[in-house]
């Protein structure tokens, strides 16, 4: 007896970002996500896999077609991103592209939760818990790195020119991360 596929219950209810606001802190909709591990030399040799660029500098990301994105978080580690519906296709394509190599592709689509932080005070709010320099010179568009926000580990991305930051964290840390951002952001809310 096959029941209808079970529905998702995300830990944070998604909401729409308002980049024009002084501060906007908005949980994002579920997405396809994979942790890709591949030896540094292999990444250099093949350059890309299934449309995901892999040979960028560490702590940089690159957008790919169809809303996909690869972020290099370490010498042999990438976070692959795409629309939720693309999950199976991404897995299939990457497996195929890397067949025969030493690699690991692990689905983390339910492990991670993303929150978009935008608005004029986005940096100030993130720097309320994150110790990194988020100035354009230090964290230019396309930056992506694992770091900390308060007592939670996060991955911080700035996918493009827009001053919109994406914070990814593990599912169970999401209420804390959202709570901390909102607490720090109160000062700017409605300002």
């Amino acid at each position: 007896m096959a029941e209808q596929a079970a529905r998702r219950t995300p830990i944070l209810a998604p909401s729409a970002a308002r980049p024009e606001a002084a501060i906007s802190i908005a949980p994002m909709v579920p997405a396809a996500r994979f942790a890709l591990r591949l030896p540094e030399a292999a990444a250099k040799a093949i350059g890309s896999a299934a449309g995901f660029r892999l040979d960028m500098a560490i702590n940089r990301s690159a957008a790919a077609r169809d809303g996909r994105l690869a972020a290099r978080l370490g010498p042999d580690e990438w976070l692959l991103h795409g629309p939720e519906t693309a999950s199976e296709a991404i897995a299939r394509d990457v497996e195929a592209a890397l067949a025969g190599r030493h690699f690991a592709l692990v689905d983390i689509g339910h492990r991670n939760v993303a929150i978009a932080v935008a608005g004029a005070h986005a940096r100030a709010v993130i720097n309320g818990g994150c110790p990194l320099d988020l100035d354009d010179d230090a964290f230019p568009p396309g930056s992506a790195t694992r770091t900390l926000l308060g007592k939670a580990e996060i991955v911080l991305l700035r996918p493009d020119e827009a001053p919109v930051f994406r914070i990814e964290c593990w599912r169970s840390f999401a209420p804390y991360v959202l709570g901390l951002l909102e607490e720090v952001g109160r000062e700017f809310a409605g300002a």
Partner: protein
Amino acid sequence: MAQPCRLPAGGRIDRAKPLRLRFNGRDIEAYAGDSVAAALLANGVRLVGRSFKYHRPRGILSHGSDEPNALLQVDRGPGRIDPNNRATVVEAADGIAVSSQNHWPSLEHDLGAVNDLLSPVLPAGFYYKTFMWPQSFWQRVYEPKIRAAAGLGVAPHEADADRYVHRHAHCAVLVVGGGPAGLAAALAASDDGARVILADEQPEFGGTLLHDLHATIDGAPAGDWRAQALATLAARANVTLLPRTTAFGYYNHNHIALVERVGDHRARQDDRRPRERLWQVRARQVVLATGAHERPLVFADNDRPGIMLAESVRVFINRYAVAPGRRIVFATSGASAYAAAADAKAAGLDVTLVDIRAEAECGPGPAMLRARGIDVLPAHTIVGSTGRKAVTGLIVAPVDANGIVGPRRTLACDGVGMSGGWTPAVHLFSQSRGKLRYDDAIDAFVPGTPAQAERSAGAARGIYDLAACLADGWAAGGGAARDFAATPSPTGFRPVRALPTDADAKRVKAFVDFQNDVTAKDIALAVREGFESVEHVKRYTTTGMATDQGKTSNMAALGLVAEILDRPVPQVGTTTFRPPYTPVTFGTIVGSARGALFDPIRVAPLHDWAAAHGARFENVGLWRRAWHFPRPGEDMHAAVRRECRAVRESVGIFDASTLGKIEVVGRDAAEFLHRIYINAWLKLEPGRCRYGVMLKEDGFIFDDGVVARMAPDRFHVTTTTGGAARVLAHMEDYLQTEWPDLEVFLTSVSEQWAVIALQGPRARDVLAPLVEGIDLAAASFPHMAVRTGTICGVPTRLFRVSFTGELGYEINVPADYARAVWEALWARGQEFGITPYGTEAMHVLRAERGFIIVGQETDGTVTPDDVGLGGMIARAKADFVGKRSLARPDMLKPDRKQLVGLLADAPDLVLEEGAQIVADPHQPIPMTMLGHVTSSYWSDACGRAIALALVSGGRARMGQTLHVTTPTGFAPARVAAPVFFDPKGERVHG
């Protein structure tokens, strides 16, 4: 009359914005721009506190953060009470109530003042000498009494109602101090677009320019230069201006901590705005333009209210339009007080100036003052003061070149401005580990070799002339060398320690450190008793300690020690200044980390369902786990019994999502696990699970869990809830640093997979209708097997495992689907009486079967053999992490503590976990401890209480009766095998 001491004109206050505050219950009128100190003085309030040790009446000494006396409790409403605020830095705000501290029953009539009369028996080191015996009295009697008598304010009882936040920031140049040098430094540093942060502890930038009314810079009034500089800085997008911000800590690698006072100066608290903000700044370059502190003069009764620092008198007059007195005597050993005297005279006050120096030493100052009609007495010393709660006169006497003191005379006055010269504020430089250098020409320690990328500028390094300060700041900010034209500043002073006196120095109180109530004779006593190192003198007398950190007292204390020892000051050395530069509230340090944000509260995907079904939760590390599910009227005991019964008799459902999970992928995955775990992994077939135990290199159990082989090159490892992060870190460490040749990648999937444990004889019946693609028949899906398929249409890794001893499954599903799958199982299980159970029932069920819990049966000193798992060790393996340590002689001793069962003679007695175990309760104390109880529960399945214990040589003691401590004595208990139910483990195969 309101504000009797307010001058009719002048000052930077806003007379159009009157406000009202309260001091010790009395209304005080003030203006926007006043400090509380200025407001009090404007209203004629002189007496603001009692001293720390002697409870002497004290007034306001200074105008800034170096104030040692005027420590007030500030009440901004419920939950907003803050002790130990300096009246000189708290801004007057409408509606605040301030009160003095350290007195009882009132400021005017303080019984503690008897300490002043008892002072002959309260010398330096008094505490150490007196309160030594008996030792137990220290904690119970002496310390509380001393704290009560000498306390600085009262800690508030209510939770802090304010909000505090943190902010990390980076910059090319951080300039600390916004006086002339700091402004020049910030201008130079920000000129080319580099990020600059300029912080000043005061509400307004400008430092001395705020009260120096006559100076000019580059031909313009200094005030105009200041306004222009600030406008330039404010217009630069690369400059962050932080007024009301104190840099209090200078740490490694140019990491500076600052506190910004965001809210206190506002009349009304906006709930959105934090009260204070902690800035943590990482700067490529730091410029310390922190200025200098004026030194008090050390003479008898130099602490009477109304006696203040000369420059502070000038600040109160020029900046706040407050007359600290109508007849003011300035007493000085240096030039700067002459400007203060001239300004006081210009404000219409009656002024006299006394200078310790001979006329010939005084330069043009005396003539300048006499031309303004001010009486100047050179070559005079101060030998005392008159008055009690306010100064009424200064006792002076001529002193000749040999120090011979002539006849006394009393100069009637109601205010004194004293100046013993200046001390650069090198606190932050010293915190940065920079080496101080003594500059004989200015009798001060100045920054020597920096230890970090730091430059000091202006008065902070002993440059007191305005033009020189500006040029020095400009250069420190990285500007190309340039000159500034400015009015020459009168500088220079004669270093004096205790002033010459005709009195017996042993009989007078001449204060060196006002906050810690340390007198010149205390320092002399310390040296006489053999404390020659200044660090020892500091500790013995407490001079320069606590919140004050020696701002006004440091050089006087050092100089006195040097003088008594007849050594040059640099040979005496200086003390180390420690953070914080000024006190910092706990709120600022804590920031947002309070309440729900104190720590992350990690909740599993089924938390909300559990909460809705009446679960009580327990904290497991950062996780909040369902502990048990009491029904109305049930206590915990009843709920746990019912939950256990359901699992043993029908089916229970449990959220095991917090288990750590690691995906181990790669050609060498099996080999890697083979090296990490004590047991064998190479031959485990895909689709099968195995229980594994891992050690640290020291041979002790580190973690355990079930590992499933999903494919030849892919394993799904589970860890304990608490061990998830450290096991992954441990594995990564070995993989990266010891075995980089292994082709293995590790990925945490702890939160990708929710885990629903379905346990009990009816588990299969509940599960079967919801699963597709997996044959659940016992023959094809046996115990310790894993299958992939779908449940409720979503992918699952289905484990047939059991931590309860019953037929059971652990259903792994992607976390966001867990709620839907759980609810489907819940609905399906109703006909079997499916029962949610919590961690407590889980603990009981596994204990009945003798399964260990890492961290409960183990404590970092327990080997596999100790807990009866020695048989798991793959003897054929040449090596695994920890194997070599298991061969150490200590690991093989027969008297090691071993896991056993314990059955109390009284079957209803649930022994206490952690209780100690002895063989003979009548042996003499100290007894020989044999071990302790690790787990203990009531077991419904066994019809009695059961316990697990680690007991020395336990396996050889089967059947023996031992004795276990209880709250009232000892209870006899029999040693048994550590399995109490289904000893052959047959039920899991059901």
